[in-house]
């Protein structure tokens, strides 16, 4: 199934969405507006003639200096119909309109890949239940997969301050602990 025929199936199902087929060498590729991503994904999963039941991965590409700068890429797989599909959502810089709705409600497996995209590119997934750093430490600054992030930088090793408790505080802590246990 090529991109125009998938668009033909999708257009009546999702009101007001303007899809756009993109050239590709491997399988069908469709640009989806961010506002219509969620109903589109639901239609892709539930329509009997599409049945894209597996979300393989979510990733992003930074096309600096093009604007809108990012493209979020979803690779979908329909096992019953032996069909693959690539969805693309154009996203501008974070300051302008850098959010995409999360597709966790359609494929629960989208949770970590979306976290990774936020971690690496700083693209916010609206409605994500746990959008924290995934691969990088929690205190990392910046989003390293962006094209304007330098490749080789040195960063001071993160150390944690030693635990400093005075003797009185230590005894008070113990006392509090014992009291809590007796309750």
């Amino acid at each position, binding site marked *: 199934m090529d991109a125009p025929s998938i668009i033909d199936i999708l257009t009546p199902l999702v009101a007001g969405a303007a899809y756009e087929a993109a050239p590709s*060498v491997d399988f069908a590729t469709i640009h989806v507006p961010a506002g219509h991503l969620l109903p589109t994904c639901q239609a892709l999963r539930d329509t009997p003639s599409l049945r894209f039941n597996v979300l*393989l991965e979510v990733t992003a590409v930074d096309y600096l200096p093009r604007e809108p700068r990012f493209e979020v890429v979803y690779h979908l797989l329909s096992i019953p119909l032996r069909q693959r599909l690539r969805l693309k959502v154009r996203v501008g810089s974070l300051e302008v309109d850098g959010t995409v709705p999360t597709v966790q409600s359609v*494929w629960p*497996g989208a949770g970590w890949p979306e976290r990774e995209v936020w971690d690496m590119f700083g693209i916010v997934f609206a409605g994500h239940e746990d959008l924290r750093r995934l*691969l990088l430490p929690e205190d990392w600054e910046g989003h390293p997969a962006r094209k304007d992030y330098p*490749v080789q930088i040195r960063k001071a090793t993160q150390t944690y301050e030693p635990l400093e408790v005075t003797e009185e505080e230590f005894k008070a802590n113990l006392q509090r602990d014992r009291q809590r246990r007796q309750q």
Partner: protein
Amino acid sequence: MAELRTETMTVNMGPQHPSTHGVLRLILELDGETIQSARPTIGYLHTGIEKTAEQKKWQQVVPLVERMDYLAAQSNSLCYVLSVEKLLGLEMPQRVKDIRVLLAELQRLASHLVWIGTHAMEIGAVSMLFYAIRERELLMNINELVAGFRFFPSYFRVGGLREDLPRGFHEAVNAFLDRFPAKIDEFEGLLTKNDMFVRRTRDVGVISQEDAMAWGLVGPIARGSGSDYDVRKYFPYTGYETYDFKVPTATEGDVFARYRVRVAEMRESVKIARQAIQRITPTGAWACNDTRVVPPPKDKVYTEMEALIQHFLIYSQGFTVPVGEAYVPVEGPRGEHGVYIVSDGTNRPWRVKMRPPSFMAIQALPRIIEGGMIADVIAVIGSNDVVMGDCDR
């Protein structure tokens, strides 16, 4: 009598726990021995390979991607070179395709051997590790014979292979293939018929087929839950459609089912490898004839001006790849492996992104282990066959 007050206990498992296959940290909330919640923490092995790859030329990325999933190096490089060749529009000679199939299957065997050894050892069958590693050593020797490197051969290159097969390759592979099926019987004798092993694995860590699909666990995990999805059958690549093999499945979805699927996969891999080694001639074409990508043979470089220029160009500037993007999946030992590449038309990739099966397997881990016993966590991690290098990249 006063009511007994109980509270849950938080246990930190890893990142250095030996059964976490590298450095995976699990924060488990326990009620007695029952797991109430589990939170995996990953990223300890993150080395930024995808970002580094953007600074390298197309051919230089091959050794880099091999270091992602370090137990299945040639599965990584196979999907990378297939993606680049898709963008370049290259077609490989039949012999190159057959050699790639053969080495990919031997790589699957090597990876499954590490899996069966560590998985069984963690459950208590310690001696299994030695039997499995002994067989894997022979596969490492074949890698060494082919490429001079045991772990990361970098033998698959964009445009074909690095060089022709060495002398003695057929003998080494045939000797291994003759010996190995009896060893699988031995493994099964030690595990499949082992009451302790079966009790530790049956009805443990069950995941349904729908859940496996929803969490993106395509591969041996889904096949243990009744799916028959295998990239080699559904989307054949590099000539798999011409080989005769079956896709083993099981329906229970527990640890024992995944174990049986992988053991049966080893037998099928031997079958494929036997067919491939019969098709491969000792000498012949080992690369396509596209002079943009493949350097000319050394004797021509020394005698012909044009060949010298071509050689110099390929090794100094590399080659350019047309603007576009490609994603070619292969069936890796852990499930669907794929590389998504984006080219801007220069001699360096714009973006390289691996689709890591272990990443998805660890994401779904809480789903599988919550509500189970803490002792089963180790069995489930082992049966999901996670490699942290693949997960963190």
